């Protein structure tokens, strides 16, 4: 069987996202399987476990629901390893979750009775700010899984923005990948330009925090604590304003037109922001530009301000708006390349899925328009911004193409940070 024939069946993509792990072989077609990127460490002192023998050290996937106990326990026992895109070198619990999820994903697609199968060509994807030790640990995990299961013939790891650019057939572009906990801005020109990456300590989780505060102010303090409800409300009523001040003026002048009402499916709960409905514009604005003066009053009342944080060797900026972040990343690249980069700005990740109700067009805008406006304010006008189609699966698709196309004989190089790592002779 030729390499191409083998890879048509046995190329495997893995996207370690901040909230979800997307995985599966090329034969999945257009969409991979998805599970939450999290693991639960059960309390071994529970009498049930003493009697029946220990369960697995870490539980993943749908099984977690059976173990979830009191709310205060969750923070301690439920681990989201990639929440910030970077796992600390010595965060052993997070690495245990990654290993368990990886093993589960590969086992899930073990071919049945195919004598030609000798392990997958695995292409995994990590945040563009993942340090070298994360690559080393991920290789090590796959080596162990292969020793136990024979499921990994070779593995390579690529940064998520490169995978997005590949999936969208764009060799030269700027990719903004925005997940739950952070956002990466990465220029790509056939290769990811690693020295130009700008990382932001802001993502969908911050829009949730803003939504929670709005619910609290509107008298729904009890619901403001429920993460799932907050996310649902954000998705239902959150809007990105063309200009925040104008949007607030318009919403206050015509409160009925802008009224935000959400019915939570399967419950008797209906949330109605009433006269406070103008606040729905704050949710979107906060993601794109938290520097607007209106947010100062929220910070003063105790809502945490997105701060600059250093995770591993990477500085995640808190308050930089998305326009500034793109400009900063592009200006770290050669001048000749810069116009080409501005010509293709790709927005990827669930944090760019903002809807515009037809009756509010003009006041509310989509993500690409907002980014163009932010860039225009700073004097950058020749820009094309596109929201990735099916952003949730872009990274996995890019992994599949990369794994399929990169020749087997190209061995892993730590200088170039690409190629195939093989564990077998």
């Amino acid at each position, binding site marked *: 069987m030729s390499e*191409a024939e083998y890879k048509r069946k046995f190329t495997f993509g893995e996207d370690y996202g901040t909230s979800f792990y997307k995985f599966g072989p090329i034969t999945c077609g257009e969409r991979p399987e998805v599970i939450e990127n999290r693991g639960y460490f059960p309390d071994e002192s529970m009498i049930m476990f003493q009697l*029946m023998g220990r369960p697995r050290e870490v539980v993943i996937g749908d099984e977690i629901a059976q173990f979830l106990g009191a709310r205060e326990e969750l923070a301690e026992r439920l681990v989201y390893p990639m929440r910030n895109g970077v796992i600390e070198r010595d965060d052993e619990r997070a690495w245990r979750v990654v290993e368990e999820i990886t093993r589960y994903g590969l086992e899930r697609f073990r071919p049945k009775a195919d*004598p030609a199968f000798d392990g997958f060509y695995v292409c995994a994807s990590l945040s563009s700010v993942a340090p070298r030790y994360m690559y080393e640990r991920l290789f090590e995990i796959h080596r162990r899984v292969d020793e136990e299961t024979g499921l990994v013939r070779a593995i390579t790891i690529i940064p998520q923005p490169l995978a997005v650019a590949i999936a969208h057939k764009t060799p030269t572009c700027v990719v903004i990948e925005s997940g739950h906990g952070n956002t990466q801005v990465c220029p790509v020109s056939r290769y990811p330009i690693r020295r130009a990456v700008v990382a932001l300590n802001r993502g969908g989780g911050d829009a949730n925090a803003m939504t929670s505060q709005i619910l609290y102010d509107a008298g729904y303090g009890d619901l403001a604590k429920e993460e799932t409800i907050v996310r649902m409300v954000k998705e239902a009523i959150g809007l990105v304003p063309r200009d925040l001040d104008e949007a607030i003026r318009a919403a206050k002048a015509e409160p009925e037109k802008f009224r935000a009402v959400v019915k939570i499916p399967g419950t008797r709960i209906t949330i109605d922001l009433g006269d406070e409905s103008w606040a729905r514009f704050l949710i979107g604005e906060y993601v794109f530009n938290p520097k607007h003066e209106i947010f100062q009053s929220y910070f003063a009342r105790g809502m945490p301000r997105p701060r600059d944080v250093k995770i591993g060797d990477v500085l995640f900026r808190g308050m930089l708006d998305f326009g500034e972040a793109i400009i900063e990343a592009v200006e770290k690249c050669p001048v000749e390349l810069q116009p080409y980069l501005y010509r293709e700005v790709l927005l990827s990740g669930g944090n760019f899925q903002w809807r515009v109700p037809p009756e509010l067009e003009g006041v509310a805008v989509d993500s690409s328009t907002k980014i163009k406006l932010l860039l225009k304010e700073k004097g950058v006008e020749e820009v094309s911004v596109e929201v990735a189609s099916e952003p949730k699966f872009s990274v996995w698709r890019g992994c599949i193409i990369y794994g399929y196309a990169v020749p087997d004989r190209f061995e892993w190089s730590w200088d170039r940070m690409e190629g195939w790592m093989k564990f077998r002779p």
Partner: protein
Amino acid sequence: MEMEGPLGQVERWFKARGFQPLELDELDLRAGKPDMAFEGPQGTVFVVFVGREAIGNRSYFADLLMRASRLRGKCNFLYLATPKVVAPFMDVEVLRKHAIGLLVLGDEGVIEALASPYKPVEQAGPAQEVPEGLELLNDVLSRLSAIEQRLSALEGEVMGLRPLAGELKALRGLREQVRKLSARLDVLSRRVDSLSARLAAPAPPTRPVTAPSPPAPTAPELEGLPSFFKDNPWLEILARRGQGEVPA
């Protein structure tokens, strides 16, 4: 002289609202003492500080709540003061139920997350307190005795299950070993299959290291692959990886 740190923050906050600090030693309290106390035109305020142990330590929080509850009848206003990092772990509903307020201490100063409602100070004398206390003690003792009985019954049930548990453990261990052996066997068997297939096939011609890369897959070769392969310029770019091109 003004105090530093959290104590100083809380003192400034109450002073700004017309309250003056009270010496704790001057308070005639049998139910324990608060960490700070203030007096003002609206009445007396007690403050109990919450430590970082409140994160994930339920018994600490329960003890703290009991301590605060004992003080509730001895002042007009009662607050827990918590560092900002601990605030998300505080159950405001419980505090509200016990008429306790919450102050959050952070870099931005003191934030009153939950106001303490006014309550009159209890005036009960020792003559009334004793029988009430005795009644409470008797009630607690009788509940304790019922719990002990239930515990002893549970112990009996657990002891009865012990032998079964030992067998289950052994069975579980065996099942795990069989699973590992079976997986290992599968790996070996697949490798043997793969090696024999390679031995049976004619040897491929040796390719010099500098050989040109294979051309990008043509349209018919991509037939049957997912739609994102179609017209994708990266297929050609990636097929040439490893041939001396240096990333930026």
